[in-house]
C-alpha cells in the first residue's frame, strides 16, 4: 500500500470516529462513573499514596463497586509530590479520561497547582487530604469540596489543647510551604499565650533540624509545636529526642504521627501531644468497619490519609445516588454533595458554606500494644463542631 493511500485511509477513519465518540453524551444517566484519583505513588512518600489507594479500593468493595447502582471505575495517577507533575496528571484525567470526579491530593502545593483546570471544566474536585487556606477563603469554588479538613482546623484544636495544659510560651517550627504556613497560623488562632519563636524551614529539602533545635533550647519555651508530615516527622522527632529536650520541653504536633511514621518513631512518639479529627479507635460503626476490614486485608492500620480517602469515595457515592446518576445536572450534584448524606468515619460531619467540613478535634496519644507494636488512641474531645476561620471570606 502506498503511503498516501494509507494516510487518506487513516484520516477517513479518524473522521468517521468523531461523531461516534460524541454520541453517549445525549444519554440521561451515566452508564459508568469515572473518578480520577491523584496521589503520591512513587518516591519516599509512596506509602501514603498506597494507603489512600487501599482505602479507596476498600470503599469500592464495601459499595460493591457501584454508586447508586452504576459501575464505578477509578483511574489512579501519581503526582510524584511535585506540583507540575500533579497539574499534568490532572489535565490528563480531564482531557483523556474525561472523568466525572477528580479526587485525592496529599500536598497543598500540588492541589493549588492542579485545582484550576478541574473547576474551570466544571468537574467536581474532592480533596482527600490537602485543605489549603486560599481554597477555604477567597478562592473557594462551587466545584471544590474537602472530604478532609481545612489546614487550620486541626492546629486550632492543638492550640486549644495548649491552653488547657496551661502552656504560656510556645515555640513553633514548621516547613515553609502552603500547608506549613496554614498549620502555624492555625495554632496561633486559638493559642492564648505568647509565641516566643517561630522557624519556617526549607521544604522539602531540609532534613536536619539541629540549628532550629539549638534555638529552641536557647529560647526556653514551655512547649514546642511542630507540623512535619511523613518522613520529616520521623526526622524531627528523632533529632528532638537526641537533643535531650523532650523531657524538659513537651512536644505538641499535628499530622506528624500516623500509622506509617509510627513504625519508625516508636518510643519517640510516646509522651507527646497531638490533636486530630480522626483516630482508628473512634467508636462509630462506619469507622470500625473501615478499620477492621482494612487491618484484615492489609495486615496494617490505616492512616488518616486513608480514612479521608474512604470518606471521599462515600461522599461521591452519596452524590451519585442523590442525583440518580444524572451527573450532567451540576447544580443537583452540588446540592447532593453539600448535603453530605453519608456516614463519615469521623462521626458527625457537615459542610460549612465554603464546602469544608465542620467536625470535632480529639486529643490523641501513642501507646504500646506490645513490645514492638504501637498504636494511636483517643484521649478526649478537645473541641466540638469546629469551623475553619476562612469560611466568612468565602463568597460563593
Amino acid at each position, binding site marked *: 500500500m502506498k503511503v498516501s493511500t494509507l494516510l487518506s485511509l487513516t484520516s477517513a477513519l479518524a473522521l468517521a470516529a468523531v461523531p461516534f465518540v460524541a454520541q453517549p453524551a445525549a444519554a440521561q444517566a451515566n452508564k459508568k462513573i469515572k473518578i480520577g484519583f491523584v496521589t503520591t505513588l*512513587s*518516591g*519516599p512518600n*509512596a*506509602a501514603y499514596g*498506597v494507603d489512600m489507594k487501599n482505602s479507596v479500593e476498600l470503599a469500592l468493595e464495601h459499595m460493591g463497586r457501584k454508586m447508586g447502582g452504576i459501575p464505578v471505575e477509578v483511574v489512579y495517577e501519581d503526582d510524584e509530590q511535585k506540583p507540575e507533575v500533579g497539574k499534568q496528571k490532572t489535565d490528563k484525567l480531564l482531557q483523556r479520561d474525561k472523568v466525572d470526579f477528580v479526587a485525592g491530593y496529599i500536598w497543598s502545593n500540588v492541589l493549588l497547582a492542579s485545582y484550576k483546570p478541574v473547576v474551570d471544566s466544571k468537574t467536581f474536585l474532592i480533596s482527600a487530604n490537602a485543605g489549603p487556606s486560599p481554597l477555604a477563603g477567597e478562592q473557594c469554588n462551587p466545584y471544590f469540596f474537602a472530604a478532609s479538613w481545612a489546614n487550620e482546623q486541626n492546629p486550632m484544636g492543638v492550640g486549644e489543647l495548649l491552653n488547657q495544659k496551661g502552656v504560656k510560651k510556645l515555640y*513553633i517550627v514548621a516547613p*515553609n510551604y502552603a500547608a*506549613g*504556613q496554614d498549620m*502555624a497560623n492555625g495554632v496561633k488562632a486559638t493559642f492564648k499565650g505568647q509565641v516566643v519563636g*517561630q*522557624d*519556617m*524551614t*526549607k521544604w522539602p*529539602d531540609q*532534613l*536536619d533540624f*539541629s*540549628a*532550629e533545635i*539549638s*534555638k529552641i*533550647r*536557647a529560647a526556653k519555651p514551655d512547649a514546642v509545636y511542630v507540623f512535619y508530615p511523613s*518522613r520529616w516527622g*520521623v*526526622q524531627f522527632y*528523632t*533529632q528532638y*529526642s*537526641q*537533643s*535531650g529536650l523532650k523531657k524538659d520541653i513537651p512536644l505538641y504536633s499535628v499530622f506528624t504521627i500516623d500509622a*506509617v511514621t509510627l*513504625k*519508625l518513631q*516508636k518510643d519517640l512518639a510516646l509522651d507527646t501531644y497531638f490533636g486530630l479529627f480522626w483516630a482508628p479507635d473512634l467508636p462509630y460503626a462506619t469507622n470500625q468497619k473501615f478499620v477492621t476490614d482494612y487491618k484484615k486485608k492489609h495486615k496494617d492500620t490505616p492512616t488518616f490519609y486513608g480514612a479521608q480517602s474512604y470518606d471521599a469515595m462515600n461522599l461521591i457515592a452519596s452524590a451519585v445516588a442523590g442525583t440518580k446518576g444524572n451527573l450532567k445536572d451540576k447544580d443537583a450534584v452540588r446540592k447532593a454533595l453539600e448535603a453530605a448524606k453519608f456516614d463519615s468515619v469521623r462521626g458527625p460531619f457537615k459542610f460549612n458554606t465554603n464546602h469544608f467540613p465542620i467536625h470535632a478535634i480529639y486529643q490523641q496519644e501513642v501507646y504500646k500494644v506490645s513490645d514492638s507494636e504501637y498504636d494511636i488512641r483517643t484521649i478526649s474531645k478537645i473541641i466540638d463542631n469546629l469551623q475553619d476561620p476562612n469560611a466568612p471570606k468565602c463568597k460563593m
Partner: protein
Amino acid sequence: MLLLLFEQFLNGLQIGLLLFLLAAGLTLVFGIMDLVNLAHGSLYMMGAYFAAVFTQWTGNFFLGALLALPAGALLGIIVEVVALRTLYTRDHLDQVLATFGLILFFNEFARVVFGAGGMAIELPSWLEGQVEIMPGLPYPSFRFLIIVVGLGCAGFLYLLVQKTRLGMLIRAGASNREMVGALGIDIKLLFTLVFGLGSALAALAGLMSGPITTVQIGMGDNILILALVVIVIGGIGSIRGAFIAAVAIGVIDTMGRAFLPNMLGSFLNPSDAGTLAQALSSMLIYILMAAVLVLRPAGLFPAPGR
C-alpha cells in the same frame, strides 16, 4: 549568646563533616577516573540501608556499621565493573545519563527490597543521649560522634593520600592518568580500588546520617547537589579542598538558618523571613562558589597538572 553561637558552629561543623564524607568519595572518583558519578548519592543511600538491615540483624549499631562498610565498597565495585567501566572513554554527558539511570534503578530497587516506608537505625542508648561539651552545653552524643568520625576520616585520608604508595598513585592518577598507565601501573585495578574506596566513604556518610535523618528512598539525591558544589569549590580530585569547602558550606548554611530569620524577623513576618533567610543562606553557598570560580577557576586546591 556566645554559647548558642558555639553550639550553632558545632551544628555547622557536623553537617559539613557529613558532607565531606560524601564529597571525598565523589572527588576521588571524579578527579582520578574523570567519571561524573551522579549515582554516588545512591551508594550513600544503599550504605544507610545496609547499616539499617545489619543493625537490625546483629542488634548492634557498631557491628551493623562495620558490616555495612565492606558491603558498600563491594556494591560500588560491582557497579564499577558491571556498569561504569565501559563509560571511562565516553563523553561526560553519556556518564551523566548512565549514572542518572542508576539513581532511578537504586531508588526503585530500595523500594522493592526494603519497602516504601523507610527504615530507622537503632542506636545504643548511650548514643541517644547527650554529652556535656562545656558546662551548660549538652550536645547530642551521636552528632558529636559524627564530628569525631568525620575528623578521624579526614586524618585517615590525609595519611592515605600523602604517605602511602596507593596515595601516591591516587595523586599521580589525578594529575595525569595516561602517564600512570604508561608507567606500567594496572590502571584498571587502581580505578576499581578507588571506586570501592569512594563507595565505602559514601556508605559511611549514609550510615552516619541514617540515625539522624532516617533511612529513606532518594535520601542521597538532594545532598548530592551540595556535594558537587563542594568538589567544585575544593578543586576536583582534592581531598583537602573537599574538607575545607564542606566545612565552610556546613557552617555558612547553619549560621544562615540560625541567625538570619531572627534578624529579618524584626521587620518581616515569620514565613517571609524564613523564605528570605533560606534564599540568602543557600545563595551564600553559591556566591562562595562563584567567587572561588572567578578567583581560582580550578577550585581552591586543584590537583597539579590539571
